[in-house]
């Protein structure tokens, strides 16, 4: 398993680069990661990430966009605007969670 280091933060990832150890994430680290995908991490970006962390906990699946809508109360349109391209994967990565597996 590769280990990534950025500005003093160290975390383990899978072959693709998604986190494998959830406890190695912190909001400070998210602030370091965001510029790598061209995102400026403001409160609007952090709200869904915090929900994802809380919802996934220690061992549950990374929430899907649908779950973020029905359980988290986020607008799908906003999530696509905040993380254009691959919103579910980008947010999972920024939130230090495993690659999302849900279909919807």
């Amino acid at each position, binding site marked *: 398993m*590769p280990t*990534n*280091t*950025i500005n003093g933060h160290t975390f383990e*990832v899978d*072959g*693709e*680069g*998604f986190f494998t150890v959830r406890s190695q994430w912190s909001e400070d680290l998210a602030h370091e990661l965001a*510029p*790598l*995908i*061209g*995102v*400026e991490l403001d409160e609007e970006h952090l709200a869904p990430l915090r929900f994802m962390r809380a919802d996934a906990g220690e061992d549950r699946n990374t929430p899907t*966009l*649908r*779950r973020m*809508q*029905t359980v988290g109360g986020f*607008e*799908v*349109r906003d999530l*696509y*605007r*905040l993380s*254009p*391209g*691959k*919103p*579910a*994967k*980008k947010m999972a*990565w920024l939130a230090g969670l495993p*690659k999302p597996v849900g*279909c*919807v």
Partner: protein
Amino acid sequence: MTTTLTPSPTPVTRTSPPEGFVMPDFGDRPVASGAVSGAPTGTPGTDPAGAGQAAYAGPRKMAFICSKGNLDMAYPALIMGNAALSEGVEVHIFFTFWGLDIVNKKTMKDLKFTMLGNTAMHMPELAKLRPGWEHKSLPQGKGGLPGMTSVATKMMKKQMDDLDIPDVPDFLDLLQAAGAHMYACRLTFDMMKVIEADLHPGVEGVISASDFIEIAEGAQIVFV
């Protein structure tokens, strides 16, 4: 009709990862050679449209044709289309023939699933009666009994709901919010005497087959 995607927020400067840093490919990093990931790069100097190579070189695009109005035949394109959108793929969906029922507000809530003609119909619940029965195909004759379609439809809707799969109207809302381009078939629209007010608001227009063929240029086409 334009097919532009939702504009991205103000571009933020993107920094490069440190040496040896492993990060997922989100598909939006500039590719040096302009090659599509996974596709072999063509030999320079050859005809771009020649020998099994498509001339289209834009971002990945998928076009779905929904021609069936059964509940179980509505979901494949809705689910794959939604998955494609969340992978950053431009998505176009054309609803034609019985598939028009999927976007017709008068029918979209009541799409049905019938076990008739479906020999893969078996029930996981039957395992409780006798292990192994969950793999047994139900006799086709049973599907013709009065009320069976309604029972099968209820059962399927419940199974989808248990997995938090939205029902058809909600799914269309979801696709619309995610930026899918949806169209109704002109011929079917006229043939079934549908009115525009009955179409889901996510449907951008009633278009002809040739319009759709134009829109689908360069797309990977999935016919359901």
